[in-house]
């Protein structure tokens, strides 16, 4: 304002000059606008007049179509080259619903020349609900040559129905590998969204299938391969006339596993008709040698969409065949926890190996009587004997002396209560109880009485067979821990280049070799003259082991557990952990047989068969007998 009053003339001239400059710049922008619109007009003129002929042929006759060519999915083999998942070429009969007027009539008519079962129809109906109308869906798979020629003769009667040569995925080993190899299935909407987010969708334009579970899922990126592209000229009927250009697909990579198919089969059969799980690990590189969850299921059922009846049967079964017990099932470890407790005692210098504890058959704490199930009290027990004969009282008192948090801190290093990071998904973390955990989980403080049963692997303790196997392998390997991994290496089928999967140690627990020796000797004693002696009688190698029995239901104070009186599903789970040979371990395992009673009787013989085959190449004469 003051400026204006002092020198009004200059101010007005200035602002007029500014307005002038503004208007000239606005004019420049106006010219710029005309330029931009001129460019657009020229582009439109070029496309719509000059190139119109070219584009209208493409569009109107829909002449050029870009066809994706799906790559071959990589195969999965065991360490000896036995195929666990492979592809084979066969014909399918496919219907494009949008091109068919009356679906039911068409299928009925097809059924007069080709065998179409009620299951095929159910599966087709389910696919129909999940898909878009213009997708072509299989009504029958794996047609015989005879069926193909019959259909070819009648093809003219069925517009919208095509016989297509396709690659099929097959799992020749069936249920034995169902939880570890997993299976593929048709891509669903949720998977499309994930692929889109990861910018991988364009690579799936030619693919109908994607890995759903197991290795098929976790190694999807390696197995799938790269989709090829074919630009073809088609006539108005959609038939390809001429290939204009072609980029071939790149096949997916093969997976070579650490698993031994024969070992896995022996372990699976050793369970007889019991339910359970077994994980065997090579301690040094952490390769998984066997990974059994029984019962399994036939993964081949899932490949083209499972029909509702079979699904209901599997999903509703009381045996839970779809549950991966080895990685997702959690159980109290029972007495198999004792060797680790003994190591904790030595680590914290709470007990020396020679220190003797008196075992009167029970331990009194806060007016509660913690029992040891056996009829005759053990009397004097040192550390070695406590493991060999599996004294409960020794570990009741030990747990009480150590306290829950030091126990949790020690066990955490062995991987108890956290996922091992194995290369398949769906792993459970289990529960490693501590004061923190209880506060987080129940918003309650920890009671000292709850520590007692943790010492013998009961109480809140709950781990997966995989965790226990990994902990046993770590123990066998003198405290050096490897992440368990099922895949040994990924192989590029063109270059034969092998990419190994993480053989590096995860961590070193820095355990005292003297402590390890005490516990290992005791575990050797278990199989020599302890609870595992019967199962390992006459073995030409030295195996270290520990039996365990995990309670399924709580037994009341003063009441005795009598197996025959307890319903089969409520019977104790039988555990066994072991490694062999004891001085140079080549295999470590954890096995659980559900509702089978004592670990010595039900679980240890399974471990024996696995060791006999792996170390001696001995194949069991007949399938294991069962107690039930």
């Amino acid at each position, binding site marked *: 304002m003051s*400026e204006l009053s002092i020198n009004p003339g200059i*101010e007005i001239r*200035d*602002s007029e000059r*500014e307005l002038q*400059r*503004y*208007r000239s*710049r*606005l004019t420049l*922008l*106006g010219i710029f*606008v005309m330029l*931009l*619109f001129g*460019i*657009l*007009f020229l*582009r*439109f*003129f070029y*496309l*719509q*007049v000059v*190139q*119109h002929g*070219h*584009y*209208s042929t*493409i*569009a*109107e006759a*829909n002449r050029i179509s*870009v066809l*994706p060519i799906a790559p071959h999915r990589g195969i999965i083999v065991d360490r000896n080259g036995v195929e666990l998942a492979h592809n084979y070429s066969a014909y399918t009969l496919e219907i494009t619903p949008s091109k068919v007027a009356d679906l039911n009539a068409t299928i009925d008519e097809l059924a007069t020349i080709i065998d179409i079962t009620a299951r095929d129809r159910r599966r087709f109906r389910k696919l129909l609900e999940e898909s878009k109308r213009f997708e072509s869906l299989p009504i029958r798979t794996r047609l015989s040559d005879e069926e193909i020629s019959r259909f070819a003769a009648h093809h003219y009667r069925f517009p919208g129905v095509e016989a297509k040569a396709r690659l099929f995925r097959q799992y020749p080993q069936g249920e034995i590998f169902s939880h570890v190899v997993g299976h593929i299935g048709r891509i669903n909407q949720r998977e499309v969204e994930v692929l*889109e*987010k990861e*910018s991988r*969708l*364009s690579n799936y*334009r030619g693919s109908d299938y994607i890995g759903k579970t197991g290795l098929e899922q976790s190694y999807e990126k390696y197995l799938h391969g790269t*989709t090829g*592209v074919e*630009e073809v000229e088609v006539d108005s009927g959609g038939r390809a006339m001429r290939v204009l250009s072609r980029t071939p697909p790149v096949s997916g990579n093969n997976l070579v596993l650490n698993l031994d198919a024969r070992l896995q089969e022996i372990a699976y059969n050793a369970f007889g008709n019991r339910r359970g799980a077994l994980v065997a690990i090579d301690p040094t590189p952490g390769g998984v040698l066997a990974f059994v969850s029984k019962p399994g299921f036939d993964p081949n059922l899932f490949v083209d969409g499972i029909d509702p009846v079979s699904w209901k049967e599997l999903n509703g079964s009381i045996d839970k065949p779809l549950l991966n017990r080895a990685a997702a099932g959690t159980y109290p470890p029972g007495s198999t926890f004792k060797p680790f407790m003994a190591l904790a005692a030595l680590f914290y210098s709470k007990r020396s190996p020679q220190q003797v504890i008196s075992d009167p058959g029970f331990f009194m704490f806060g007016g509660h009587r913690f029992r040891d199930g056996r009829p005759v009290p053990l009397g004097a027990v040192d550390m070695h004997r406590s493991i060999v004969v599996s004294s409960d009282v020794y570990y009741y008192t030990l747990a009480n002396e150590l306290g829950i948090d030091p126990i949790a801190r020690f066990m955490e290093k062995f991987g108890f209560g956290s996922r091992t990071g194995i290369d398949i998904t769906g792993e459970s973390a289990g529960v490693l109880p501590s004061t923190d955990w209880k506060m987080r989980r129940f918003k309650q403080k920890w009671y000292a009485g709850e520590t007692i049963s943790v010492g013998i692997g009961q109480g809140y303790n709950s781990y997966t067979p995989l965790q226990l196997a990994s902990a046993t392998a770590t123990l066998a390997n003198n405290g050096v821990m490897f992440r368990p991994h099922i895949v040994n290496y990924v192989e590029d089928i063109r270059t034969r280049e092998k990419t190994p999967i993480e053989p590096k140690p995860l961590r070193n627990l820095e355990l005292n070799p003297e402590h390890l020796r005490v516990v290992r000797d005791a575990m050797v004693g278990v199989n020599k003259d302890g609870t595992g002696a019967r199962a390992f009688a006459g073995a030409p190698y030295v195996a270290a082991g520990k039996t365990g029995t995990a309670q399924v239901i709580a037994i009341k104070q003063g009441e005795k557990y009598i197996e025959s009186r307890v319903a089969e599903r409520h019977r104790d789970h039988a555990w066994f952990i072991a490694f062999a040979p004891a001085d140079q371990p080549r295999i470590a395992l954890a096995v659980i047989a559900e509702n089978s009673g004592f670990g010595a009787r039900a679980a240890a013989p399974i471990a024996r068969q696995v060791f006999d085959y792996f170390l001696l190449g001995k194949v069991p004469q007949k399938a294991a007998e069962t107690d039930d």
Partner: protein
Amino acid sequence: MHPALRRAGFYLTRHIDGVLLLAVLLLMATGLVVMWSASNGSFARTSGQMANMLVALSVMWVFANVSPQVLQRMALPLFVIGVGLLLCVALFGEVINGARRWLDIGITRIQPSELMRIAAPMVLAWYFNRHEGSLRLRHYGVAALMLAIPAAFILRQPDLGTALLIIASGGYLIFLAGLPWRVIIALGTLAAASAPFLWSAMHDYQRQRVLTLLDPSADPLGSGYHTIQSTIAVGSGGILGKGWMNGTQTHLDFIPERTTDFIFAVYSEEFGLLGNLVLLAMLLFVIARAMVIAANAPSLFTRLLAGSIAMTFCTYAFVNMGMVSGILPVVGVPLPLISYGGTSLVSLCIGFGILMSINTHKKLVQT
């Protein structure tokens, strides 16, 4: 006419610019016609867009009735709120399609970057107005910095399209404010020299889009697909077009995003070069009217703001049609007033409301 009615009519229309309103309504009507075809005759989609338009027109009326002086006072607070919201998006925004753009405010989700399309030019115009008559080089520097803050946030979301448009709207404004030519030439040279660095800062999918533009056949199944199909649609339209509802590319499902970013492909296929000329003329008319308003605006604030709004509208239209016809990369910019989408309609109509306010309040002040 009853005097009460006449008075109501006066209050309803006294800040409305009839010429601009007519042009906007014509474009919206065209949009609805194309929407019906693009959505395969979907009543829900078309009526939804109509509802969006009614909301947008109401917002336009409200802004037309706000005097430029009030807008000038609102500029800085609005900008600060906008930057605050962008910060919130960066911290707690929802991720949709891999980009963090949306903010859930309980009742609805908003996209704060849309607010910035208006707030950024407003604050720059306010700033230049404050220093009117004493503009030094450093003032242009400060203005560029104020523009860079929201642009950086939006670029990080990542939303290259919106970021570039905001930079463009601010850039026009700085140019109109009289940025010296020597600086413009120096900056141009610098930009050309730094292109390689910009390239390395881009996201993979953004680079993909640029590469695809240069050679769409390189990725015919992925990002090149959009460009190939929309170019075929435009080209096959010819001079007269295939006729409304008769576009084969459209109705055989070849054009992706055909009610939103790629709606121009539908229009172009069905109405041909002639239709395109009509559309270009309508858009040009809106821009011309906006520029006339800018040229006659009473203050530096209103002049700069109106000029920037006019040019931003032009840029939207150019970028969208350029992208559909295959001369610009696919950056996700809607065709103004035609593409489906409430947020874009509202932010455009706020711009038109401001233009109307600038044009009508000036007269009231003078009389």
